[in-house]
């Protein structure tokens, strides 16, 4: 039995996934889906900046994960990291297919509508964050998405990108620093 932390609603919650003996894990797919669907969608939206494309990629990622769930190996990482690796590939495939790498550049028209119930200073704050994100390189924006939406550890990000954990931490820190400076 293993546990991983859920953070999609900002609350710390422990979900339990049942696993058989090593390397023959039986993934509790429903639990994984309920826990991560919003985060996968947010991550996909961050890469694609388009609602319909984000939904397509989200659905595709979960379908691929469902079909490959028997191949999931808990010894090689968490279910969440495994799922986001699938989602990342699906999102990048979508980018390639549409020849829309430019979609990673910031498009204000694609931004969600401001929350009317938010504080008075929220629209200004959101605009600042949007501008700060748009100033980041695409790979830096992906690092931000992997950290803020996917909630992956630096080791998991390193595995996903094929770099070391410390290198992943350095890159994430560099992106966050640029983001903070832009927001200041």
């Amino acid at each position, binding site marked *: 039995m293993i546990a991983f932390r859920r953070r999609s609603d900002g609350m710390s919650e422990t979900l339990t996934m049942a696993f058989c003996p090593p390397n023959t894990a039986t993934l509790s797919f429903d639990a994984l889906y309920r826990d991560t669907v919003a985060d996968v969608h947010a991550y996909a939206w961050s890469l694609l900046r388009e609602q319909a494309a984000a939904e397509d990629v989200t659905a595709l990622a979960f379908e691929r994960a469902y079909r490959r769930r028997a191949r999931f190996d808990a010894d090689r990482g968490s279910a969440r990291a495994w799922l986001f690796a699938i989602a990342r590939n699906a999102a990048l495939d979508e980018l390639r297919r549409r020849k829309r*790498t430019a979609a990673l*550049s910031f498009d204000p028209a694609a931004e969600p509508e401001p929350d009317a119930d938010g504080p008075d200073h929220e629209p200004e704050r959101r605009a600042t964050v949007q501008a700060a994100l748009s100033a980041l390189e695409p790979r830096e924006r992906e690092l931000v998405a992997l950290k803020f939406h996917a909630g992956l550890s630096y080791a998991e990000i390193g595995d996903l990108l094929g770099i070391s954990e410390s290198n992943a931490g350095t890159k994430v820190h560099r992106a966050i620093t640029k*983001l903070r400076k832009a927001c200041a």
Partner: protein
Amino acid sequence: MSSHPDPTDALDPAAATELAALDAALAGDPADPEWAALVAAVRAEAPAPQPRFARALDDRVAAGFPRARPAWLRVPASRLLPTLAVASTLLIGGVVVGTGTLGGTTDQAFDAPPTSAQEETSGSTEAASAPAEGDEAAPVGRLPRSSAPPLAAPAPTASANPGLPATARKVERTTTLGLTTDAKGLQDATNGIVRTTQDLGGVVASSQVDSSPSGGEATFVLRIPTARVDAALERFAELASVARLSEGSQDITGSFVSAQDRLSDARAERKALLAALGKATTSRSIASLRARIRGNRAEIARVEGDLRGLRRRADLTRVDVSVRARGTAKDPDAGSAWGPGDAARDALRVLAVLAGVALVAAAVLLPLALLGLSAALAARVLRRRRREAALGVG
């Protein structure tokens, strides 16, 4: 996905502290308001899934992501199963036929019918339809010669046909016949072989009969007039089941003509020597001529013997006959009914053929599999690079 630890890119303490604060904020720890505000702002950037999409995806997850089956899979099982059954039957039938063919070649050579040129030289032709010893024998009374090369017409010989020219073909033929019978029929078969041989003007050159309560075996070397060999074989086939029939022939015309020439020369020399003897006047020359005439006479006798031997080889066909009674130790199952032992042997043979087919298939498929694996790995690397390239342009 594998990380590659690199000691040179270790995180500096200040960065580690900030990342720890970020992790705390991401985990919902409100200790640092600035980090919490940044996390909230970035997360608020991404919209939530549309309710309609969320419901549709929930339904698909609940249904296990059903997907349309390919057209060929939509065929009802009631139609698919008979098709698969027929295909399986054909496959098994092919394997069994292949097994029988391969098994036959191990016991008996299937030579093509010989050409005339082949027959003129030394050659042995086995009846293609004759089963090998140990296999099922032809029924009693039938020679398995439907597809066998027909026996050459009896070679005319000078003695049998004095009017033919001296250059008529002289062919020596040999025949090997294997018979099987039951233990009780061995004695009758051996008696019948001897009687038939004598009736047809042949002789039994040698014979050996070994009998035991469980069976027995008899072997004969017969000399049968060539013109009557076919009749003899037909009558032998009525005595027992024919398990094997092999026929061979060798052209001995060259040897025969050579002997004839030598005989003519020797006779001409004798004539000349006699003429010279009549004209000889001295005792010394007379003695010398008489000595040469004696040598000439011996030479003529020797060549005439050779000619008789050659004529005999052409006129009489050597027929080797073996009669094997069922249940003998050498061939315990020859001619017996198909039983569990045969079934086990057949099963092993089928398995051997299947193993051979699998080996050949592996020999073909393994390189293809390696190529496919290499291509798949290359495609994977290429796909990964292209994916990364999708992020490289901003």
